């Protein structure tokens, strides 16, 4: 299946392509997708699946489906 991944405000060294299509097998989870993005510390990032928060502790059990939009960003602090 294909999903869309949007990477927002990723800190250096950031992977190329802030928005991309990602091919994943059926049964893949948010954790699987996150692990395949080439981020330095994937677990330290926040995730939204179709505008809903997916807390870090639940990603391994959160199944993806075709055409999902996964948004990934660092939990940076305000200023």
């Amino acid at each position, binding site marked *: 299946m294909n999903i869309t991944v949007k990477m*927002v405000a990723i800190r250096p*060294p950031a992977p190329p392509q802030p928005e991309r299509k990602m091919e994943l097998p059926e049964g893949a989870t948010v954790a699987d997708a996150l692990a395949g993005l080439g981020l330095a510390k994937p677990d330290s990032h926040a995730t939204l699946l179709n505008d809903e928060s997916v807390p870090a502790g639940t990603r391994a059990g959160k199944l993806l489906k075709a055409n999902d939009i996964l948004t990934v960003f660092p939990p940076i602090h305000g200023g």
Partner: protein
Amino acid sequence: MAWHEKILRVDLTKGTCQAEALNMEWAEQFLGQRGLATKYLGENMDPAADPLSPGNVLIFATGPLTGTSAATGGRYSVITKGALTGAIACSNSGGYWGGELRLAGWDMVLITGKAKTPVYLNIQDDKAELLDARDFIWGQSVWETEARIKERHQDGRTRIASIGRAGEKLARYACVINDLDRAAGRSGVGAVMGSKNLKAIAVRGTSGVKVKDMEAFHVAVTAARAKLDPSGDRAGLAATGTISMLDITQAFGSLPTRNNRDVQFEGADKIGATAMATPRRSDGQPNLINNKACFSCTIGCGRVSKIDPNHFSVQGKDRYKAASGGLEYESVYALGPMVGVDDIDAATYANYICNEEGMDPISFGATLAAAMELYDIGAITDADTDGLKLEFGSAEALVKGVELAGLGEGFGADLGLGAKLLCEKYGNPDLAMVVKGQEFPGYDGRSMQGMALAYATSNRGACHLKADPYGDDFDGGPIEGKAKIVYESQNSVAAVDSSGLCLFPMSVWDLTDVASQVDAACGGGWTAERLAETGERIWNLERQFNLDAGLTGKDDTLPKRILKDAAKSGAGKGKVAELDKMLPAYYEMRGWDDEGVPTTQTLQRLALT
């Protein structure tokens, strides 16, 4: 000891400047800067005093690490009773002024009374004097004030903290600006300064700051820098500043838009970090010229910008075509989405005027947003605005509005009231997006529930810098965990705010890293645990000041819109701020009663009785 153990007491009524010993017993209890100055404030004034009366006290305070080589060790705070809020104000600034005060040999400047005529304070190492500001800098902008003082005293390295015309006119959110574009921004500390007829504090120091154990201090600073300097967080702040937060709050749905009617802004991509760095079609130059750093800072999050010389806002105004302090996240939120404007040059111009005339861009933008909503519903009309069309999304209204507010002219006098008083004046108090009278920063509490609790309980009114709920909010953490996160981070932040350091390294450091530097500099056994306890003591001291000033637990609340109207989109879609679930747990954790009053046991535990 990193403290000079010396404060400057200035009595404006008598026209005197006197050195006095720092109370080291208090320094052991409250560390410095925010904490120590709050102690001095409470001991030197009646908290019930009118903030714009001579009875208010104005304190410029450094921390023990200010002026040292500790990374980001250049901060100072302005502590007073806020003109905007009637609550404790603690506005923290960077730049070079705080470090210079320490190099001049002072820990703090404590100002009482009111000058008969406008003056400025000139500090040259251990000499301090009040000088006449009339026919010199009174009536001038911050930028002109800095230039004239440097010229008169023939020293380009003099550092100046001053108010602009907004402060002179007592705009409720007037701020103190140092180094042209660094601000002790919030709560109206500049209006307090204006009410005292004090235009500026110029300082030049040629000594240094001694630390308790130089070798241990060098080891601690080097170790802390070894964590901070190579980090992605530091590199990200240097590259894009804080403005990259806009992309996150837009994606998350926590970006206050059109006075919090919405939580995502359709024009976000025109004013964010990418837009700021992209060359314009008109002249091939980007808005962003460079980054810059404050005293002893290894991050460099500050922005330096240039407005498109063809933009309507700068036609016939050459001084705004030069490079100057650029937009940061809070300013771009308030001067962009909050007022519905997607014109980065108009927002940059408005930010310049806020710097030039000494206004908090957060409060100005949020007040203009409230005015736009009042205009939209017909509560404000063209007759009130002298024909200015206060429409959401109007860059022209933003540009004209900021000019009027900066000078306190025409409808600008109404804008200078702040959102709370403005909305009360025009019969719609619920439209003010404020807590304790202070306007919202750039986070909507319906998708960021921890931030909602942080806003509601902040001692100085709505604030994004007095707690650190960001990570858990963005991770979608449960409501049940919010009270603990806000409570603990409020304590940590209070300690860091009292040290002389900036908060930004705290995305990489923890209190252990702060403690090692403070202990090497000051001695006395500073640990992470002691810093956390000191932060809790400071938080409760501020709370006591507010209670004595007349605030109550009823002030720990949010606007009706955030509590009753569900967010329309984003991660918080369909949600309101669940303050009723979080606040009781927070009070219990703090050791406060049901009315939000610290119990006797809590005060005894913290040695506050």
